[in-house]
């Protein structure tokens, strides 16, 4: 693994850990997975047009997040139905458009071994930088909104706009993980370290720090084990991450 690939995977893990903390606290854990599926048709179109798959994925994820945001104002049942129907359909359509090696790679990652293009490196660092700086600078507003959107309104927070920004950053985090984890597994790197941190931490700073550390640890250890055991990187990262979660269950919640 080259130095830029290593740094990029660390940046991805930091962004995933932070994004995940707010996703877990917003009880978005189940929505994370279907939203990531929407990237697949984008990848299919991008491959057909001979452009980099990550740009197709980003475009589709942008619209996917916009759709979730638009229906979120309605009842919860509507949101779940939309996510269930639209995003599963996206997975099916994407699978029809992509095939063979490309499909496996898009779903489960595995492009990690190939050389990184400059465009991808630049996109990766820019996206990770945007996600991390958004979450750091809007952390207080996100926390207040998390507790009560009505209270957030009286504190002068534009709740609808902040929700949209958060969902877009969430979608961008999924796009970031495309190369190493694929669209099916990136949701897991967002959710699992944050869920582990939520169990173990005693305060907000502790949760954010722990989620970042666990996501980075799972990414590095998983990548190393993948090389060592001659397995795919993405599934290995998620397996390590899940193993840490199960170990954390041994500790009783305080």
């Amino acid at each position, binding site marked *: 693994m080259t130095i830029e690939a290593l740094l990029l995977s660390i940046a991805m893990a930091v962004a995933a850990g932070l994004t995940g903390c707010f996703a877990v606290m917003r009880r978005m854990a189940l929505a994370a997975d279907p939203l990531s599926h929407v990237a697949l048709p984008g990848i299919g179109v991008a491959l057909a047009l001979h452009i980099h798959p990550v740009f197709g994925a980003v475009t589709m994820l942008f619209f996917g997040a916009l759709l979730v945001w638009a229906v979120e104002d309605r009842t919860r049942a509507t949101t779940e139905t939309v996510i269930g129907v639209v995003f599963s359909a996206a997975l099916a359509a994407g699978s029809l458009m992509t095939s063979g090696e490309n499909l496996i790679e898009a779903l489960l990652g595995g492009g990690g071994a190939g050389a990184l293009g400059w465009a991808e490196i630049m996109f990766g660092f820019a996206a990770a930088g945007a996600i991390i700086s958004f979450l750091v600078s809007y952390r207080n507003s996100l*926390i207040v909104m998390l507790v009560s959107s009505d209270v957030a309104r009286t504190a002068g927070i534009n709740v609808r706009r902040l929700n949209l920004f958060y969902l877009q950053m969430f979608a961008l985090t999924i796009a970031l993980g495309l190369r190493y984890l694929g669209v099916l597994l990136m949701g897991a790197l967002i959710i699992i370290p944050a869920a582990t941190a939520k169990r173990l931490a005693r305060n907000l700073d*502790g949760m954010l720090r722990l989620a970042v550390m666990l996501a980075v640890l799972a990414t590095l250890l998983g990548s190393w084990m993948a090389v060592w055991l001659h397995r795919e990187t993405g599934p290995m990262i998620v397996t390590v991450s899940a193993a840490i979660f199960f170990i954390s269950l041994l500790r009783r919640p305080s």
Partner: protein
Amino acid sequence: MRKTGVAIRHPVNINSVETVLEVSHLSVQFGASRVLSDLSFSVAKGSSLAIIGPNGCGKTVLFRALIGAIAFEGSARWAPGTRIGYVPQKLDLVRDVPITGVDFLRARAAIGREPPANVSHVLDLVGIPPAIAEQPIGTMSGGQFQRLLVAFALLGGPNVLLLDEPTAGIDELGQERLNELIHRLQLDQGLTVLFISHELSIVYRYASNVLCLSQARAYFGPPRTVLTPDVLHELYGTQVDYHIHDH
């Protein structure tokens, strides 16, 4: 992004400078069902307005309309410079997250660019010991958590408090203490208070005016004038026997 204060729908001059809120012909409709119909009332600066009525009559909906969270017909005019502190009845959050009372208050203080010392100040005002405030919010008792929400509402320097059943789910002693706390804060800081309650004794004790919402119509005025046995019967369906104890 606006840093402090609440969206003021019609920042116009209100005739009397003493009026904080002027609501006229306010109606809220969700799909085919009309939840609030043609409400008109006003709230004077420094006074207390109690909002009562049976479950489902739209008390919380009225608060949400007043803070601009839902669309409505008619008008709700807050006096210029109004800053609202809101204590909701229902939170969006499941309380199993590792957010401490202090985390929560610090986030609010940071949004309003207030110094961190204000966090200790409001904790002191509502009587939450620092050791409790450093605990995750899920470990707090119902009474402590409601006090935390009041402390939160006090950050941002509000001049109006909206309290949606602030004492729900607390034991009797806790209720008494919280009501006294709110009353003391109102007197000390000259706050205008709008509160939703099911407790008629609290309404009689603290409210300058009462707004009774029922399916048929709304009543507005001082509690002793408005809360006649007939009105109470209309509101709650059964004969409510209530004796006013004058001290």
